[in-house]
């Protein structure tokens, strides 16, 4: 059966057709055979019956009148019928009345006995042959029965003949049907075979672009359609899969590179606390290869971890362990991890996020990041130290300035004071010398000395003393502005500026100077100091006015998101570009001969503005005036 199953469908189809044909023929012919047999049998039956009837009739009167020879006569008529080999007549009691035998008939069943009276046509076949027993009736009267025996041979030979014929016909049918079978089977097998071929080709060449051409609209056609559809899908999926594969590869590559090259250290922990994966940055941090890290359960204590304050780190606080227990992310824990290579602690910010499985029920792994901010920390620490140094130095400096200028003033007081004493003494001398009698020369010399030279000398001394005093006062003031505590508040600049201008009135009296101001926005600062700022700048503007023109000072404003900016503009003599920065320097005076002042005004202004975290700048051209921009923090 298996071999049959494995033959080609052509063969199968042909064989199937032939088998079916032959089987149908066999069945059909068997049916016919049976029918024929039946027919033959019933023919025989009817023939025999008819014979029986005919002959039986002839037996009526013999039976009736007990005429045995008459019966014999009647029976002899059966001679004509070749297949009737025996006949028996029984009377109404079933006793044998008369009989007839063909020549070679052997009474096997021994009919010469009484039989049960038979009232109906009975037929059966036994070794003797085909028995037909017919009751002999006439009118309503039952006279007896006639049994005819027909030879079995007749049926048998007839059947055999028929059977042989049937066999021959069937074989013939079988043989004949090969031709149509083999040509018609191609209707089914060809499409299937070509599809099989196609499939083979596709499998071998991995070419999914071929399609089967549909032959017909039957189920094979559907198969073709389905096949083509499948190929479509395969092709599409192939293409899609290629795209996806490529994207996946790219993504994998990207992530791998990212993982390995990122500055952040990343470690994936298993829920049991083992390292699953560690990138290069993490390896560097722990000074251990990822293979070593993965060996056994991760033990934080190896790295002598500390808190920022230097105390030992509680290993339970390690973010991945917390994340593991709480199933929640832990962010930015600061730890100091001892690096055995650098022999120093590295400061890291550690965060851990638990990653759940698809159903969200279990933690699959813990994603832990290590942000090394050691450098930054060091820098910050250094900066703090520097800052502190700076502040200290600054304070020191200011102290020095303060003390020095203070202590310097003391001798100055003496110098000035005793110069005065000397002058007083000189005056006394003068009055005594007037009383003295001297020659003209001596008188003149004495006069020169007492009236000119000495006073002139003292005049220079005086000037210098004043100058020194002014400078010292200025320095003291400057240092005070640096030291004094700022009282920061919202300032109404309109009022403040008005006040400042008012105090300037005496300066601008007599000169053609006008000061205009716009409405000014508020700012945030120390009132006294800001007054000083405006006082100095406006004072400068007045000082450096052009002698020949009318002086105009404009105060306007602008603002940015952080600052209120005040513009103090004058049409004075202006400042050369090269001096724009220098004007804020200590003791700088643009034209010392033409103006008074120590050169501290703008320095003080800058110091004050700086202390307020503001900005000062200037825009100016020689001969065209100057504008000072003071940016102060906006009011709150």
């Amino acid at each position: 059966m298996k071999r049959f199953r494995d033959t080609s469908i052509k063969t199968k189809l042909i064989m199937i057709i032939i088998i079916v044909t032959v089987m149908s023929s066999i069945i059909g012919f068997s049916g016919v055979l049976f029918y024929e047999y039946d027919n033959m049998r019933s023919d025989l039956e009817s023939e025999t019956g008819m014979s029986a009837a005919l002959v039986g009739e002839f037996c009526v009167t013999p039976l009736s009148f007990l005429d045995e020879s008459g019966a014999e006569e009647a029976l002899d008529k059966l001679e004509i019928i070749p297949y009737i080999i025996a006949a028996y007549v029984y009377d109404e009691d079933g006793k044998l009345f008369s009989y007839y035998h063909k020549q070679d008939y052997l009474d096997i069943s021994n009919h010469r006995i009484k039989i049960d009276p038979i009232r109906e046509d009975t037929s059966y076949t036994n070794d003797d042959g085909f028995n037909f027993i017919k009751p002999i009736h006439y009118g309503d009267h039952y006279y007896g029965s006639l049994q005819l025996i027909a030879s079995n041979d007749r049926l048998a030979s007839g059947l055999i003949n028929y059977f042989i014929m049937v066999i021959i016909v069937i074989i013939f049918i079988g043989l004949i049907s090969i031709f149509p079978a083999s040509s018609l089977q191609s209707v089914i097998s060809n499409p299937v075979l070509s599809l099989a071929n196609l499939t083979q080709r596709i499998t071998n060449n991995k070419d999914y672009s071929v399609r089967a051409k549909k032959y017909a609209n039957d189920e094979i056609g559907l198969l073709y359609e389905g096949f083509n559809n499948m190929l479509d899908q395969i092709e599409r999926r192939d293409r899609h899969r290629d795209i996806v594969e490529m994207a996946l590869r790219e993504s994998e590559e990207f992530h791998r590179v990212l993982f390995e090259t990122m500055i952040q250290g990343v470690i994936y922990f298993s829920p049991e606390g083992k390292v699953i994966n560690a990138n290069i940055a993490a390896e560097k941090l722990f000074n251990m290869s990822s293979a070593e890290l993965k060996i056994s359960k991760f033990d934080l204590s190896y790295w002598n971890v500390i808190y920022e304050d230097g105390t030992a780190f509680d290993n339970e606080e390690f973010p991945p362990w917390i994340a593991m227990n709480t199933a929640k992310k832990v962010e930015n824990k600061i730890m100091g991890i001892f690096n055995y290579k650098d022999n120093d602690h590295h400061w890291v910010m550690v965060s851990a996020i638990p990653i759940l499985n698809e159903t969200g029920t279990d933690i699959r792994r813990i994603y832990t990041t290590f942000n090394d901010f050691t450098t930054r920390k060091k820098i910050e620490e250094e900066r703090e130290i520097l800052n502190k140094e700076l502040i200290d130095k600054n304070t020191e400096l200011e102290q020095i300035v303060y003390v020095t200028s203070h202590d310097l003033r003391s001798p100055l007081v003496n110098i000035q004071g005793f110069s005065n004493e000397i002058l007083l003494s000189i005056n006394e001398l003068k009055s005594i010398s007037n009383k003295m009698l001297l020659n003209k020369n001596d008188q003149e010399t004495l006069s020169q000395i007492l009236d000119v030279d000495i006073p002139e000398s003292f005049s220079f001394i005086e000037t210098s003393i004043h100058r020194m005093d002014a400078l010292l006062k200025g320095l003291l003031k400057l240092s005070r502005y640096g030291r004094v505590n700022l009282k920061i508040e919202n300032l109404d600049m309109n009022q403040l500026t008005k006040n400042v201008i008012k105090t300037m009135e005496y300066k601008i009296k007599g000169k053609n100077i006008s000061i205009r101001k716009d409405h000014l926005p508020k700012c945030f600062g120390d009132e006294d100091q800001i007054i000083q700022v405006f006082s100095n700048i406006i004072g400068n503007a007045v000082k450096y006015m052009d002698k020949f023109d009318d002086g105009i000072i404009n105060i306007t404003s602008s603002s940015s998101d952080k600052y209120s900016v005040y513009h103090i503009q004058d049409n004075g003599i202006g400042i050369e570009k090269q001096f724009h920065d220098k004007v804020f320097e200590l003791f700088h005076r643009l034209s010392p001969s033409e103006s008074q002042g120590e050169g501290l005004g703008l320095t003080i202004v800058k110091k004050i503005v700086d202390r307020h975290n503001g900005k000062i700048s200037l825009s100016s051209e020689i001969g065209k005036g100057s504008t000072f921009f003071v940016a102060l923090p906006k009011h709150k």
Partner: protein
Amino acid sequence: MKKEVTLLVAEDDPGHLKLLINNLRRAGVKNNILTFQDGKEIIDFLFSEINDGIELSKSPYLMLLDIRMPKIDGMKVLEIVKSDKKLSIIPVIMLTTADDPNDIDLCYELGCNTYIVKPVDYNNLSNALKKLGMFLSVIEIPNTVKLIS
């Protein structure tokens, strides 16, 4: 001012001291002047005076203090004096090179009567002294009197 008023001057710089005394005399102040080189000396003196049972109303004092002094500086002296019941009636004038507004405010808070910045305008000073002197005839001098220098 009454002749009985004794001026107590605490000044560590001899030059400043000489100038002060010369100018005071020239300005017509004839009172007795006691000088001290530092804060400690003047404090010791004051407390010994008290211990001796000197009635300050009868022999009044007037103090001129420099802030910058060794051992005990002027501010401290001022503080001590003004916190002592008996000594607090003594008027105090601060004479100093410092013009730090913080210092000035602090001195006034502590209870000084006048704050004068060196170099001294001696006319002003003598006027101030005279004015103060007039008050000395009263037993208590109101500490809130601040004379503008």
